[in-house]
């Protein structure tokens, strides 16, 4: 659905804001673009949204060349920029109606879609209020609804969860999962990694304009994962288990009495083995949880390997 081939962007002819980007996102999947500020995430999304033309390389959206068929690409893409603004004096209905007209959605479909989107994003109660009166979360949902007015095939979301409270983030996450289920390809950029956990199918890590690592989370999150284990009593037995577990347990730290952080090489099977061994030795466990999500682990490992 989205294919970037050797895409580079330079603003000043010296430093590439985006360098040699190779990226493919399939239909019905969510691709998380993560990285620190200035990594090139926003520049990448702006190129995909046809707001900036790449200095080199080609971008294809749904088979269309983004440099040649601007209008066709724009009809297929919904873009929600970072810190986007709305027209404060308009009502949500007027706002969606304006963008519906801008995308040439016919009258009947437009009215039906406005009602459906307001319903879906829990804004029906506010349909008559001005945008100025909406909370931050509602504005974010309205912005997302706007990007869906023309029924796009691709969604580009730049830091959509920043400045949202936890409840609003949960609702946003649910909405994105619904959209994914409908078959949309979504690229979501964020530096708030927990927001992407359980949401993204694939992740791309950007650093200094380069995509340093990309792929499905399951395939690239194979390295070390840190788990938190809380042991009730028989701590000495737990320590013996850790000592006997073998090389897949790369280290452990007792961060507070009975609470351990253990670094394990491998996936969920290894932690299951460790838990089984602890229970068989008579240790009682009150908590077993990954200290970080898979996406965070991937990001941390990629950042560490870059430093090395």
């Amino acid at each position, binding site marked *: 659905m989205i294919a970037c081939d050797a895409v580079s962007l330079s603003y000043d*002819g010296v430093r590439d804001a985006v360098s040699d980007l190779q990226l493919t996102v399939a239909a019905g999947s969510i691709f998380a673009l993560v990285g620190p500020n200035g990594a090139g995430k926003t520049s990448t999304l702006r190129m995909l*949204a*046809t*707001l900036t033309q790449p200095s080199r390389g080609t971008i294809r959206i749904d088979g269309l060349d983004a440099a040649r068929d601007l209008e066709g690409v724009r009809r297929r893409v919904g873009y929600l920029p970072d810190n986007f603004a709305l027209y404060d004096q308009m009502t949500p209905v*007027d706002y969606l109606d*304006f*963008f519906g007209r801008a995308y040439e959605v016919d009258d009947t479909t437009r009215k039906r879609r406005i009602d459906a989107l307001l319903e879906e994003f829990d804004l029906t109660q506010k349909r008559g209020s001005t945008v100025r009166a909406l909370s931050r979360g509602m504005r974010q949902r309205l912005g997302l609804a*706007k990007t869906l007015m023309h029924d796009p095939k691709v969604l580009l979301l730049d830091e959509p969860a920043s400045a949202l409270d936890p409840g609003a983030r949960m609702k946003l996450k649910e909405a994105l999962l619904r959209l994914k289920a409908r078959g949309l390809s979504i690229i979501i950029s964020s530096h708030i990694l927990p927001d992407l956990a359980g949401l993204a199918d694939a992740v791309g890590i950007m650093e200094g304009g380069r995509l340093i690592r990309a792929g499905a989370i399951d395939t690239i999150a194979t390295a070390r994962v840190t788990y938190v284990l809380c042991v009730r009593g028989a701590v000495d037995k737990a320590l013996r288990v850790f000592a006997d577990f073998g090389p897949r347990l790369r280290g452990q730290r007792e961060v507070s009495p009975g609470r351990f952080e253990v670094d394990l090489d491998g996936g969920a099977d290894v932690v299951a083995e460790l838990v089984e061994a602890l229970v068989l030795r008579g240790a009682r466990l009150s908590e077993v949880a990954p200290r970080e999500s898979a996406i965070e682990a991937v990001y941390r490992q990629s950042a560490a390997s870059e430093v090395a």
Partner: protein
Amino acid sequence: MSIRNAISAFAHRGARRGTAATFLLYSALLTTALLLLAAWIAPEARAADVETLGYWLRSSPKYEPALDPSLWTTLALADVFACFTLGLAGFVLAPAMVAAAVANERRAGTLDQLRTTPMSPLGLACGLVVGVPARLYLLCAGPALLHVVAAFATPLPMASCLQSLVVIVVGTAASCVIGLCVALAPRQESGGTFAALGVAALLGLAAFLAGAFAGDRHMVAWSYLHPAGALDAVMLAQKGLWRRMVVGAWGGGSLESYRYVGTLALVPFASVAASLVFGVVSLRAACRKLESPQLPLFSKPQAVTLFVLAAAAMVTPMWGARTDVDIDGTAVYALSMFMLPVLVVVGLFSTPTFEAWAVAVRRGQRLGWSADDASAHRAVWMMEGLWSAFLFVLLSRHWMHSMNGDETLALVWAAALAMSLPVYFLFASTKYSTVAARWAFGVAVGAHLLCQVIALAIVRGHEVRGFSGTFVTLAAIAGVAVPVWTAWRQRVLRVRTLAR
């Protein structure tokens, strides 16, 4: 996407059906207010004219001023107010609204959101020009209707009414496109209020000047340069209340000149043509900027075309006016002073940004004069050459032969000063990254140019002695030192850019 759909989208954004009804009601109230105001003033004014007429008829020797108290009817006066309202709304307020809205959209980032829709740049530009002031246009519906009704009920001919409406509509569209260009031109997103005030002040001043030109038989040929002058000309050409109010009780003499009346009749047509031509060129520039915001507002060919059109518009009336106006070196300098802001605007807004210039410098290629990344030196020099050619071809026999040594020196000095302008444009564009720094540099260069112009005036006036002589000497030194210093700093910047 069709332009019609884009305009429809913006028109609905500006005024939805319910809002449109409300504003049409406000428009009716405004029209009623104009009628009431006219009903209050007209009888008083009519009585005053009757009294004046009686006074002069009783005087010895008897004198009869060209006064017709019957012109002061409520509808005729309300029509004058309506025309003024339409002109103010269309030529000043609507473009200011467009400039403010677009500047705000740029700052908020909503313009980028609009650019991600399938609307073409032309559709987007047309939508902004039509949709942003939609409420103002609705407010003008009542006064426009009043103007049409007045054509039926007063001596104002229907042809004049139609001419005035065409002038207003075309002039409004062209003014709004200029407002759009003003908001899109700066590199950084400027404040909406600042842009609106700037546009309102600029167009308001131009409207005032053009209106004044229409009432002056020597200057009437230039009144077409702004639609307000053309509107004034249309109304002045008819024997009605507008003429009575503009020329007063004693100023009707100039209207006996066939040349003046004939020019008044031509002005609306010339104005509509000028509005269309400048509107189209400006619209193309706005579309280019909407499509590629990183480019300067004008491409080099667009800048040269715009300048040539402006120069032609400024000089052409000389043909008609040359027997009335004493064309000499002073007129040439006055015209050049009018053209200087045009040159500065088109030169500055065809100069590349630092990023584009740096990319071009690092690429090491020699760019043609028309390349967007090239500095505007050659384009500006071309404009200056064309302006000189215009003056020489059209006016040489009137002034060149009568120039003495000092005036020739002043002319050469002025030419050298004009040649140095693109050096400042490029330095302002590439050296300074903040608006404040650019303004500071602009003010400093403005002060330098002012000193140069004063020195030129002194040289032309043969007053080079005492303090004036010292001033001219210092100005001459600055005239060389300032551009050389700027060019040297530009060279340093170029070296640093290449080294980075």
